[in-house]
């Protein structure tokens, strides 16, 4: 049984002109446990929206998203919050670390929303991403590459089954991008978390065995491209 099953997923947004514009129309998509899949698509084709729907940040207009047998789209808002804090990890393009919290505190904060703070695990993960000497540094005291490593550790700190990575290398130079990508893949594998990574960068996705073009699964993208 796949870890993630998406069926008939649709999402539209109302534009300023008052008209509803479809963004996501995914008839079918699935992801196996502990697998690592890359979704590639150009900007504006709904990659982030797709991940937000899977994470329960957005509610779909139609369709279902099953994560580990649970239909995310049927869950209440607080149940979706709980899902994100326990079964999902999220890595953002802009890192989204909280500036008032140190590296360690950023991880402990994420844990406090889920299973509860575990200082040893947080320290171990930061050590794993090469930041054992930066536990008490604030994000502003780190390089962009280091900030994204903290974000990687934070995504994994609650032991999620699935990590969603949204353009995780988009703000990094080539060297850092390669390093961070390697780290994401290794740590997800070590923590037995599946990885769904979206990016527009073909080069960044070169190492993935499974790279899916978003346009192949999103009917809106197909229509948009063909138009």
């Amino acid at each position, binding site marked *: 049984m796949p870890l993630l099953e998406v069926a008939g997923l649709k999402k539209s947004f109302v534009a300023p002109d008052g008209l509803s514009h479809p963004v996501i129309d995914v008839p079918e998509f699935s992801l196996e446990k502990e697998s690592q899949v890359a979704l590639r698509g150009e900007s504006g084709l709904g990659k982030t*929206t797709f991940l*937000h729907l899977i*994470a329960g*940040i*957005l509610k779909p207009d139609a369709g279902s998203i099953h994560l580990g047998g649970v239909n995310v789209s049927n869950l209440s*808002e*607080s149940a979706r*919050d*709980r*899902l*994100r*804090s*326990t079964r999902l990890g*999220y890595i*953002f393009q*802009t890192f*989204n670390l*909280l*500036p*008032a*919290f140190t590296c360690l*505190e950023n991880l*402990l*904060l*994420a*844990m*406090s*929303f*889920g299973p509860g*703070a575990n200082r040893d695990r947080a320290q171990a993960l930061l050590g794993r991403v090469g930041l054992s000497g930066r536990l008490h540094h604030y994000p502003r005291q780190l390089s962009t590459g280091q900030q994204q490593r903290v974000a990687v550790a*934070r995504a994994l700190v*609650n032991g999620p089954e699935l990590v969603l990575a949204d353009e995780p290398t988009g703000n990094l130079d080539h060297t850092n991008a390669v390093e961070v990508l390697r780290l994401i893949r290794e740590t997800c594998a070590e923590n037995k978390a599946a990885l769904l990574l979206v990016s527009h960068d073909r080069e960044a996705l070169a190492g993935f065995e499974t790279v899916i073009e978003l346009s192949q699964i999103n009917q809106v993208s197909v229509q948009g491209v063909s138009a």
Partner: protein
Amino acid sequence: MTLARIVAKSLRQHALSTAVTSLSIALACALLMTVWSVKEQARATFTQVDAGFDAVLGARSSKLQLVLNAVFHLEASPANISSNDVAEIQRQPGVALAVPIAMGDNFRGFRIVGTTTNLFTDSEFAPGRRHRLASGRLFDPGRQEAIVGSFAARRLGLKYGDKFQPFHGINFDERHEHEEQYVVVGVLEPSNTPADRVLWIPLEGVQHMSGHAEETSSDVSAALVKLRLPMAGQSLDQIYNKKGDRLTFAWPIGATMADLFNRLAWLDRILALVAALVAIVAAGSILTSIYNSMNERRRQIAIMRALGARRTTIACTILIESMAIALLGSGIGYLFHGAMMQVAAWVIQHQTGVVLEVFAFHPVLVWAPLGMIGLSALAGIVPAIKAYQTDVAGNLAPLN
């Protein structure tokens, strides 16, 4: 990581607005506590100060004026009464003691009061407490000698053996110096009563002071009266106030002062209104401060929500932050309150000799901070609702 830790981080992150808002809460809280404490303590203290006597007999006037003049040494004496009046009330069966006092002179603004040594030997200014000398002895009624209240001695720098010349009138005017010279033969221990601000000399000294009218030299300003039984006051009230029209019998002293405070009840209501407005404005400053910071917090809230924070958790952090600012402000408010009380007590002591207890407990010290915290919680509701409604997906991207 607890909610408290998240709130602490946020307070530090917005340190300037936290400091400014806390200070406004502190000032509001201190103002509330000080106004109430001074009001209540002043009422309690002024209605309890009776110099150890039950009543004052004086010339026809208001009871309040008599009490303020004879007990608190504040008002001008309405007129004199004769020594026969004092002797007559002393003969009343219900009167245990009547001590004559004569006023009308000062030394550098501090009142000189002529009296008999009975005031110090036969009366207690508070239950079980008589005036005691810190140094020296009581004055000799036949000589130009004085004993000085502790506060007056300290302020005037007078000590045993020092000499001074009285000035005419109850207000200091250096052009009106009397010829007589008095020598300080004793300094009283502090009693925390108006007596501390007085220079006491023999009754005859005031009566025969140079420049005072010779034909009224046997008159006194008033008599302080100690009753054998409280009910004796009723018959004396009948004799002097209801049947007579020449003298006023101010009894009981505490009730007369309470009457003053009752007449000032309108002031209490205004103070309460001002205090309530100050508290509301201070709580409003919390609302404004947090609400204005909501724009910059939106992304932070969205990130926390994306990490799995519940809406209620986010709203709670805002409410707790609001209350934490009030708590911090209340803590600082206690310091301000202590300082304000010191100043208020100093002013009241200088003006009246009555000493307020700066650190005395009053319920306002509990309900004012609690009220501020409650008001702040209410003020936090609007920004908390805004935080609760923050759109996650729309605010995850950096603000440009």
